[in-house]
């Protein structure tokens, strides 16, 4: 019969607590962080007597009507018991004492303090003090030898010392513990204990085991351990009969051993897993009182009491006789004590034992004898290994342990862990009266389960989807899900009613918005989910039913195991289930991902789900963009990486963001663009309460890359994070969803920038091989830039290698282009060998811009002719994407420039667009941007992408701002441009620096300049150079008020179309303008590109014109 664990009850506010029994065992005494000592008649005592002893009580001890406490004013106080009248101060330290204990007869106390000292004080005469110095850190705990010869103490300096009380010398010191600087940082408070009567053994909790040392020899007699204990033990106490040893761990395990047999008698887990910091045996009965670090008091009844009786038949004869001896011995003594009391019940040894120990004096003798027998038993066992022990103490001790374990009749392998129960993602436990049934990106379903009535509240984050609703919960629904279309509820079966699935299809266009389905008998719904146009329910019969959202039953299939949780998104269904039994706290889960669209297919075939050790699944679902994700109980968020063969990548560790150990983040949603992990911070719990209404916080993602502190590591992490978080774009395009090209281009640009930075970094570090590796990840354009960079930094070998690479890439590109003509879709898959999928961009473009392509090709040929002198030969593989690359080559004919150096002459360069100050990164941006230009035109009427799935607003603005920030850091040049509000008004969110340059001819400033040129010239007749005029103009323009500037910008924007046309007409005549244009052919080129969309033929002429100038 295992011990009965009484429910925990509140004892003190959270914080360290201590517990002890009074001499007779009639009451439990606790002390806690509120500075109160509470005297409990029993666990159900509703009105315990409280004695205030100070601001905080750290430890208490009780003996012979004297209550000794160590309190926060650094004193050891004494109070009378049970009255609680103060009886003076025993001693003081310079800081608070951590542990105080009585010696056996209650005449002295020992206290260990944070000022490294241990003191023994005579209770009657506090002037009789003995101080023990020698610890180099705060003392954790102390323990008196029952014979008053020794004193043991454990300290934060990692040592456990035994002191000779008489001369205050250290008898022995073991470096057993982990070092730390303070008690609060200690892994364990290491409450050690001497055997209470004989003092033969000293038990010390060291990590997950208890080491027992023999008196005088100070040899490690044996260790006690158990697989149940996973975290360090905090407290150890002997039962008053010395036979049993109880230990409490920091994660709330309480284990009781029989010391003689070294068998584990009890394994009890604290109901909430809090740290056990106080543990006390009842002096007579089979109770074990414990307190946790949260201030709760608990009680175990019937602890190990059955020891001899129940287990004895399991043991070998050897053991049995030992036990029997003890039992008999006790019985004999019992008899003579009990007869006078008129007690006639001899049958229950344990009862007798309890009564007997009620008489400490007598019991003393009895147990002394008893001890000897125990010792004999120990010796007998120990003798086997005595010799080996001499050779190797360590080996001996392990041997002893082995011996003890070999006697164990029961299974000792890895213990199967209980399978986790099915749950709905974003719900709080069903036993709560007020709980969340669902909190997802659509809304919140709350359930109130009061005595009189039970109700469900549905609330939508976006009230435009549907208004909040209130339902009465007569059928006791426990499972719910919520989508843009419907509310789905389910209840388990009762004795009369079958398990029901109830759907409120609020988006239905007819008048009947509800439907209900009864499950077959003996089939309970365990998990449900909603997708777009379908609902699914998994049942206890390992079946998965799929319904249409209107209530038509569709597919049904068997699940490979009991369902854990399900999630739906669009056409995807994700099912987590138990693949088998996990061991040692691990769960063994599998995951299935199905697509329920037109082409139904299974993407993940019940693959194992990677979970952190000893954790369970806590949340499973999809990102807003439709990538499967899940969170385990250790706070690790993982996302499916479709590019890497559907593997799972950890993208965030929410625990890193927690302040406290027991704080958690309760995940409610994941967004890939912008990268947001939406979750609710929960202080000291795993889930939030319904009231006060919790607020959502946003965490950022971070991949667990190495050396994240270095620049290289950071960039690598950023790069791969960007890759992972944009996999969904490929998925969307593959599945024929619409998405915004701009985000994709943005992504490619961002990634190429990072690659370029890494490239430059490796270049700087002379890591040429690494440079090539990086270049392999780049797009064609970026590779060309890299070649340029390498050749300018005089790395000719590198440049050559890179150009080889570029040839390969070009060939690949050409090949893919050919294929593409045959079939777009096929190409998407085949080209996935290149990481950067420049060809894919081309793909989309080709679809939209077939007409434009030819023109562009013409243009490119023209350009190639013009620039043959410094042309690289690969551009001939004419594709639209190559066009810009050529331009980059043409434009970067300046001297060698450090691409990361902020240009000092930024202002001048802004205005005159002096080619000498342009740098590689600028060009690069231009390039990648260039490839997007045609797309932008096609993209102008942006339709909300994937309507219900993607959050409409965010995808547009946030990246744009991000980008601007990035830009400023890279090129000061742009800063100036940014001032022109034109930026913010630009029609495309992907509008970026180069676009500004593209649009330069129609900025507000230039319009203003045209108008005011004459004024400037009049004021400064000496200004003849164009750059000077512009500079002066710039100064004046900057003096204008914001509003005026805005007005200009607005005008510029409003008249954009007109402006360009008029400019075209004006151009030949306007000398100044022409000069400017000539000064920057590149710019002109950009302009021409822009105009192409307006008028292709004029555009061609214009570009031809521009190139002639060059």
């Amino acid at each position, binding site marked *: 019969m295992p011990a009965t664990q009484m429910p925990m009850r509140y004892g003190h506010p959270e914080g360290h607590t201590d517990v002890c029994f009074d001499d007779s065992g009639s009451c439990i005494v606790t002390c806690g962080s509120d500075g109160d000592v509470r005297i409990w008649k029993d666990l159900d005592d509703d009105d315990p007597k409280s004695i205030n002893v100070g601001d905080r009580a750290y430890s208490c001890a009780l003996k012979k009507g004297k209550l000794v406490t160590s309190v926060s004013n650094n004193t050891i106080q004494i109070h009378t018991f049970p009255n609680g009248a103060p009886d003076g101060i025993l001693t003081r330290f310079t800081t608070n004492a951590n542990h105080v204990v009585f010696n056996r007869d209650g005449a002295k106390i020992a206290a260990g303090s944070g000022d490294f000292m241990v003191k023994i004080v005579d209770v009657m005469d506090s002037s009789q003090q003995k101080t023990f110095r020698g610890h180099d850190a705060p003392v954790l705990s102390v323990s008196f030898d029952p014979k008053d010869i020794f004193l043991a103490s454990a300290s934060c300096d990692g040592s456990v010392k035994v002191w000779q009380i008489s001369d205050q010398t250290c008898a022995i010191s073991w470096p057993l513990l982990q070092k730390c600087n303070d008690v609060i940082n200690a892994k364990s408070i290491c409450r050690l204990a001497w055997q209470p009567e004989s003092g033969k053994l000293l038990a010390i909790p060291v990590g997950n085991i208890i080491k027992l040392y023999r008196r005088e020899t100070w040899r490690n007699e044996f260790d006690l351990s158990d697989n149940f204990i996973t975290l360090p033990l905090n407290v150890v106490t002997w039962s008053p009969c010395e036979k049993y040893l109880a230990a409490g761990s920091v994660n709330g395990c309480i284990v009781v051993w029989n010391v003689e047999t070294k068998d584990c008698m009890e394994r009890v887990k604290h109901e909430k897993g809090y740290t056990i910091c106080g543990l006390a045996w009842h002096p007579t009965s089979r109770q074990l009182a414990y307190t946790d670090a949260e201030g709760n008091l608990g009680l175990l009844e019937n602890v190990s009491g059955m020891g001899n009786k129940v287990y004895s038949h399991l043991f070998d004869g050897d053991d049995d006789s030992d036990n029997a001896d003890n039992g008999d011995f006790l019985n004999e003594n019992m008899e003579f004590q009990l007869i006078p009391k008129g007690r006639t019940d001899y049958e229950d040894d344990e009862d007798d034992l309890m009564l007997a120990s009620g008489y400490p004096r007598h019991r003393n003798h009895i147990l002394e004898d008893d001890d000897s027998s125990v010792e004999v038993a120990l010796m007998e066992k120990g003798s086997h290994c005595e010799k080996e022990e001499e050779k190797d103490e360590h080996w001996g001790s392990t041997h002893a342990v082995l011996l003890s374990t070999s006697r164990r009749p029961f299974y000792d392998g890895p213990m199967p862990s209980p399978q986790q129960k099915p749950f709905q993602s974003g719900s709080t436990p069903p036993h709560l009266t007020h709980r969340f049934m669902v909190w997802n*990106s659509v*809304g919140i379903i709350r359930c109130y389960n009061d005595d009189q009535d039970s109700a469900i509240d549905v609330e*939508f*984050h*976006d*009230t*435009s989807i549907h208004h909040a609703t209130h339902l009465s919960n007569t059928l006791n629904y426990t499972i719910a899900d919520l989508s843009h279309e419907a509310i789905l509820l389910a209840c388990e079966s009762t004795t009369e009613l079958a398990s029901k699935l109830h759907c409120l299809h609020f988006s239905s266009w007819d008048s009947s918005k509800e439907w209900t389905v009864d499950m077959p008998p003996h089939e309970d719904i365990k998990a449900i989910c909603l997708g777009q146009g379908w609902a699914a329910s998994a049942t206890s019969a390992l079946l998965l039913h799929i319904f249409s959202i209107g209530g038509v039953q569709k597919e049904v299939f068997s699940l490979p195991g009991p369902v854990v949780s399900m999630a739906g998104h669009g056409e995807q269904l994700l099912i987590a289930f138990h693949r088998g039994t996990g061991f040692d706290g691990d769960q063994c889960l599998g995951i299935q991902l199905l697509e329920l669209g037109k082409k139904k297919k299974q993407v993940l075939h019940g693959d194992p789900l990677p979970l952190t050790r000893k954790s369970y699944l806590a949340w499973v679902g999809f990102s807003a963009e439709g990538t499967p994700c899940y969170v385990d109980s250790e706070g690790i968020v993982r996302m499916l990486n479709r590019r890497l063969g559907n593997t799972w990548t950890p993208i965030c560790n929410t625990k890193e963001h927690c302040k406290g150990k027991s704080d958690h983040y309760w995940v409610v949603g994941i967004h890939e663009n912008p990268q947001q992990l*939406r979750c609710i911070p929960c202080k000291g719990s795993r889930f939030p309460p319904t*009231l*006060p*209404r919790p*607020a*959502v*916080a*946003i965490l950022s993602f971070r991949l667990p890359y190495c050396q994240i502190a270095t620049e290289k590591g950071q960039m690598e992490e950023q790069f791969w994070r960007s890759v992972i978080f944009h996999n969904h774009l490929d998925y969307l395009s593959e599945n024929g969803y619409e998405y915004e090209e701009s985000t994709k281009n943005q992504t490619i640009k961002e990634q190429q920038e990072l690659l370029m930075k890494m490239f430059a970094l490796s270049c700087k570090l002379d890591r040429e091989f690494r440079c090539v590796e990086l270049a392999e990840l780049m797009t064609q354009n970026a590779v060309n830039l890299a070649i340029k960079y390498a050749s300018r930094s005089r790395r000719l070998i590198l440049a050559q290698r890179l150009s080889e690479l570029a040839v390969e890439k070009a060939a690949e590109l050409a090949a893919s282009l050919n294929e593409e003509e045959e079939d777009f879709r096929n190409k998407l898959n085949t080209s996935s060998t290149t990481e950067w999928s420049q060809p894919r961009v081309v793909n989309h473009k080709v679809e939209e811009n077939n007409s434009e392509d030819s023109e562009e090709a013409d243009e490119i040929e023209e350009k190639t002719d013009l620039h043959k002198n410094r042309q690289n030969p690969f551009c001939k593989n004419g594709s639209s994407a190559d066009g810009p690359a050529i331009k980059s080559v043409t434009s970067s004919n300046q001297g060698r420039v450090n691409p990361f150096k902020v240009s000092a002459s930024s202002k001048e360069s802004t205005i005159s667009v002096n080619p000498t100050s342009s740098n590689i990164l600028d060009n690069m941006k231009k390039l990648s941007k260039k490839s997007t230009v045609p797309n932008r035109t096609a993209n102008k009427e942006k339709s909300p992408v994937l309507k219900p799935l993607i*959050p*409409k*607003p*965010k995808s*547009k*603005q*946030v990246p744009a701002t991000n980008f601007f920030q990035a830009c400023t850091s890279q090129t000061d040049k742009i800063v100036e441009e940014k001032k022109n509000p034109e930026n*913010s008004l630009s029609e495309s969110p992907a509008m970026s620096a180069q676009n500004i340059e593209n649009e330069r001819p129609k900025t507000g400033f230039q319009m203003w300049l045209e108008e005011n040129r004459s004024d400037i010239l009049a004021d400064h007749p000496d200004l003849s150079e164009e750059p000077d005029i512009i500079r002066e103009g710039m100064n004046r323009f900057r003096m204008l008020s914001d509003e005026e500037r805005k007005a200009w910008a607005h005008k510029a924007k409003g008249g954009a179309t007109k402006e360009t046309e008029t400019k075209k007409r004006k151009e030949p005549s306007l000398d100044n303008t022409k000069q400017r244009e000539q000064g920057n052919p590149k710019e002109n080129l950009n302009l021409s590109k822009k105009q192409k969309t307006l008028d292709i033929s004029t555009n061609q002429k214009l570009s031809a014109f521009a190139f002639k100038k060059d």
Partner: protein
Amino acid sequence: MDSAEVEFLAEKEMVTIIPNFSLDKIYLIGGDLGPFNPGLPVEVPLWLAMNLKQRQKCRVIPPEWMDVEKLEEMRDQERKEETFTPMPSPYYMELTKLLLNHASDNIPKADEIRTLIKDMWDTRIAKLRVSADSFVKQQEAHAKLDNLTLMEINTTGAFLTEALNHMYKLRTNLHPAQSAQSQDF
């Protein structure tokens, strides 16, 4: 300046709301706001928060200091000290009033908070009166008061200066008036 103007100034204070609609970033003279995502907290000026709240477009998250325990502590401190203690926000009164009037359903223990703020206000105004009283009585030329909020200054400022002007006139006229009187008769 009257209290409406002070309140107007207070409406620029930022508060956190949870919108129940979806809207892109909006660009205003005072700065950019948003983007608004349903269910995600966002900081907006009080005036917008109140407007949205009245149209039931958002829930307001009370400022951190608007918490019974913290306010009790502040009130006790205010009562204990002779001088003015720093307030949680320079517009505590206005914020409390606006939030409690329009968004009391989003603020836990709204009534208690109202009482506490009123207590603090009363204590401070009483202090202000006492100090003004001693200032006048002792005929001091100047005095320094720290940690007063705009609204508090506004309650007595105009009156006090006007009163001092009058008193000054009366005092300076005291002696000449006597002589004038004698001349009259």
